[in-house]
């Protein structure tokens, strides 16, 4: 493990942060342009909350495990 220059946790953080941005962006877009077929509980705008959480989580991992 130690000889790898990039930690697996960094990859995970990067992917989750990117996914978080995409899901958050999609959720915000849905606020202004509601989709034709709304999902159940769509008033919760779960995409915004989930995407934000993923961005925070992923960013934390990126910072903590960034290549040095």
């Amino acid at each position: 493990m130690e000889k790898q220059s990039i930690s697996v946790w960094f990859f995970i953080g990067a992917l989750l942060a990117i996914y978080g941005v995409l899901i958050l962006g999609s959720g915000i877009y849905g606020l202004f342009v509601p989709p034709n077929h709304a999902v159940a509980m769509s008033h919760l705008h779960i995409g915004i909350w989930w995407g934000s959480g993923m961005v925070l989580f992923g960013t934390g991992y990126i910072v903590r495990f960034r290549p040095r």
Partner: protein
Amino acid sequence: MLSACFLQAAETRFSLNPVDLIIIILYFVLVLGLGVYLRRFTKTAEEFFMAGREMTMWVAGLSFISANLGSLEMMGYAAATYQYGILVAHAYWIGAIPAILFLALVMLPFYYICKTHSVPGYLKLRFGEGARSLSALSFAVMTILMSGINMYSMAIIMKVILGWNIHFSIWVSSLTVAIYVATGGLLSAIFNEVLQFFLIWIGCLVIPVVGLIETHGWAGMVHRIQANFPGQDFMHMWSTTGTFSNNPMGAHWTGIVFGWGLAISFGYWTTDFLVVQRVMAAKDLRSAQLGTIIGGFFKMTVPLIVILPGLLALAVLPYHLVPESQGGLPNVHTYNEALPLMLARYCGPGLLGLGVTALVAGFMSGMAGNVTAFTTVWTYDIYKPLIRKDASESHCVSMGRWCSLLGVFVSIGTAYLVMNFSSIIVYAQVIFVFFIVPMFGTVILGMLWKRTTPAAGFWGLLAGILTSFALWLWVKVDPGALNFVAFSGYAKDMSENMYRAMWSLIANVLVTVVVSLVTKPKPDHELRGLVYGMTDLPSEHAFPIFQRPITWAAAVGVGFIALNIFFW
């Protein structure tokens, strides 16, 4: 071609947006990139087949549990929950936790100290070539078969739910796994499994969170289930198992405890090399033990993303799901669609892509587990001892890489075979479950009883395998035999499996003991490092109490007991 195949989904049950497609494609790009990146770290045989035995406890533990969290298991158990209720959580609790803790505390030290590359490798050291060859050949065949069945199941789901072309699904997903396993070996498989663990959890956790908000909490969910299915008890794990006819599974507590909790569970978690290989790659014994316990903790929590969605489906879906045999009609959904339907219910653009990626990740982690285990067993337990005894290390690595590709192609062939004979899915699961049960009897007697002889190891294993096949055939030929095999004609498939596993283990143990008593045991000096009482096990006393495996195993054990009492 790519977008055409993906965008067929617009006409099916899910409607994928461009952002969903970006999420799915990005995942494929990253796993391939990881495989290529990690190739530089897998030059030697130890690095390719055992990931250099350098994994930390967290990496080993998450990989251990992720390899078990295949898409077939996720969707299968969600479907089973819709059918049988919370009883299915036994698969995650009594059907896993005691065995995982036993592996960590009792069996892992022997696997680790003897430095074997595989479970059949341990059988070679303990019992000789006969037991090793029998277990290795059976394991290789079963692994490939299971890999193909997983692949086919995944492709079917992608076709039914997303409208993806079935051949496209099979080839793209399989070739991705083949490339990252062949380039990076076990190291790449483990790293991807850790990544997949996060994706599976984050992708599937949306369902219970939003679902419980919709039902106004647990009590609201139970109330809705009772209203939707009056007179049926889906919410108790033990209190309805006093008789076979009192619960939807047709299960009795004896079958759950001795068949599921002992025979099937200990067989799978302690001797199935697919999962054991992950923790054997840990950097030291303590990391391997703690990694296993970490895996056990997360196994205990998996019902949150598999069982709870099944229960929520019972509560919130406006229609009743039907068995697979009654599917195929317009607007009729089957049990197997429970998890994907719940994803579609709650996940809008972006989240849906994440959910589908979680299912694909589940498939890939399950398949990579099969392929890496097959590759190691083939190279070390079949090719080197039986075909080319003088194979060099570099030749073994090369064989491993080619074998990974070959394993995937054979699995694809198996998937197409299954496509023509769909009932094989059921049969193969039965065969797979019952092959590993006798293996547990052989391994545990070999580890704990030094009198067990090499001949007994071979004949006991063979007797267990033959017993399981014979009982299965008996019930197929004469369904009335269920009254003898499972003690009740009410027993459904899962319940029947529990009792067949129990008989298989009993046959294995009886034959092993009897043959041991009439044949010559190995001398003591050949058993060092392999048998309890003949092995110097490292002491934990040098570590603070909060760094000892026994402490964390006890904590997981307390959680396991509390959950069973809570859902009694």
